[in-house]
């Protein structure tokens, strides 16, 4: 088992930082804290973290400046921006500056952990272009746009295919409803109620037909995961 990923938490509010750190520790990370942009940048550049959570508004050097400086210095550490600004424009600005994901306050701790896990994994796996995804006995051909389980082709609607691709790319990784909505549908508002649940449920019924080993797992209060048994 690889070492727990080290995460740098750059957050000026000490209580929030402590809170985030304890969530991360519970989620299996090794968090370290920094309370202002300049120190944070210094640490991020020298300590080789697996990921950074970065508050958008910091004293001295704000989050956007930190991330720009980080990218200019050649660091590729995944950065999760955490901000009270939830507008699409703010998100675009944050991501364009070099952020890898964007989470708005207030957030559930599980959401934070899920997103960081996704970032760390994506980073460790590298970004090689894949043409075939495989989880257990489920194959997804990205060229032919085909899902096959145990040799049997599964009919999928375009959105279902996209959803399955996203879940399989992040196999073994808990995905929150909001993450799914953002990555698959690319909308950033609150989808409300159980919209994502029914989409995942529908896909799940097509993949995990009775008699087969279930690949889908529900993490109560967090979201969903697809993983080989």
């Amino acid at each position, binding site marked *: 088992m690889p070492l727990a990923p080290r995460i740098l938490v750059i957050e000026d509010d000490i209580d929030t930082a402590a809170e985030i750190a304890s969530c991360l520790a519970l989620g299996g990370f090794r968090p370290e804290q920094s309370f202002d942009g300049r120190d944070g940048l210094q640490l991020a550049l020298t300590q080789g973290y697996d990921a950074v959570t970065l508050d958008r508004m910091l004293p001295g050097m704000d989050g956007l400046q930190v991330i720009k400086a980080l990218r200019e210095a050649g660091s590729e550490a995944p950065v999760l921006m955490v901000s009270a600004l*939830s507008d699409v*424009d703010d998100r675009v600005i944050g991501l364009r500056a070099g952020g890898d994901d964007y989470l*708005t306050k*207030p*957030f*559930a701790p599980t959401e934070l952990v899920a997103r960081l896990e996704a970032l760390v994994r994506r980073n460790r796996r590298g970004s090689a272009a894949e043409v075939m995804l495989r989880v257990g006995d489920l194959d997804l051909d990205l060229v032919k746009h085909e899902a096959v389980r145990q040799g049997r082709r599964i009919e999928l609607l375009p959105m279902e295919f996209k959803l399955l691709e996203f879940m399989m790319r992040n196999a073994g990784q808990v995905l929150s409803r909001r993450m799914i909505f953002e990555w698959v549908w690319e909308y950033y508002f*609150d989808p409300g109620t159980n919209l994502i649940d*029914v989409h995942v449920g*529908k896909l799940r019924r097509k993949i995990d037909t009775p008699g087969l080993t279930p690949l889908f797992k529900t993490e109560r*209060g967090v979201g969903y995961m697809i993983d080989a048994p």
Partner: protein
Amino acid sequence: MRLSELWRITTFRLAGLYGLVFVVGMVALLGMIYLQSAVYLTRRVDGILNTEADALAQSPRVELTQRIGEALALNGDQTNVFAVFSARGRWIAGNLHTPPARLKLDSRPIEAPPTSDFPAYARLIGRRLPSGEALVVGRDVSQLREMRSIIASALVWSGVAAVFIIFGLAVILSVGPLRRLRGLQIASEEIAAGDLKRRMPTSQRHDELDMFAGTVNTMMDEVERLMLEVRGVTETIAHDLRTPLTRARAQLHRLEQAERPDPSEFGRVIGEIDVVLERFRALLRISELEARDRHAGFAPTDLGMIAGQVVELYQPLAEAGGVRLAAAPGPATVIDADPKLLFEAISNLVDNAIKFSGEGGVVQVRLGEDPARPRIIVQDNGPGVAEDERASVLQRFYRSEGNRMIPGSGLGLSIVAAIVRLHRFELSLQDANPGLMAVIDCRPPSLSR
């Protein structure tokens, strides 16, 4: 009333400025008169003196003493000076017994103060006679001097009087505006102290102060309205957030007391807190929408396509709830809008419609028939919204009493209303007999900018 305050009043400054201009003009005028008349009269006296001196100087020496006597007899020795002195300055003839000290012969006339010989100011001229003796001719100029001093004092006193009058007038003229200004100040201080009902006092004059006070009052009406709205909103939010938080607290308390807490209890507490967080998110979203730059994400947007996408997104949810969701085909309609926001608005309407129509319900998303008046309609056959509640449902942060049992932030309609406001579209709720029809009226692109 302090002077420093008075000085800042425009009326005072203007009155002072006009007064100063007036005083300067008056002084210049009087000064001119003074100079002109003094110079003129002096010149005339000098001319006469020159003529007399020339005439006497040219008369034969033997007749001179007699001539001087005649001249004195003729002109009076109290108003005229005629005298002859030897080259050494010794008196020979005339009504002056010592030659005036400053007098130079054959030079310009001088003015000499009264002496024992001649008890008045005199203008004197001297001539050297061919014999070497000195002839002195002079004239009483006390009248001229008096006149000059009269004009000079008139100049000074009228100047001083004018300055006082102007200052007094400026003060009087400024008292009115200053008093009204004081009234405005008091009113604004009271407003700043929290009395939002207070208004600026106005007079019947309709002058610039009244215009200004009127503008401020209009602004205050708006501020008061907003404050009331904020208060209402704050109370609503407080109420909405307190309920789940109170429940969560009670549950936590129970868990704290319990010997062996039931893990599912924790889930319920988290659920309650999630509700609060969800509401917070919705509230933030609304205020963000309201603070947004209107046209940032605007682009030509195909209404029908958006409607189709929303229906596709919500189809599984509708199916799961036993609701038939359909997009009715309509005319191709392209409007100027932010497609993501419009999608969010229609999603919220559809989400609501599915929730409220319930098992066996029918929800339809369709476009208006008239392409010139683009509109999008989300219709359900649920219980609808009571007529008297329809307006308040669209208010900021409003949550219907009946809605409180339905999961979700309950702020969906408020978000829709905020998005519609941002677009300057119009949102209305209508009776669909049975059910509710939510209509977004979108103006055509040419009119929306």
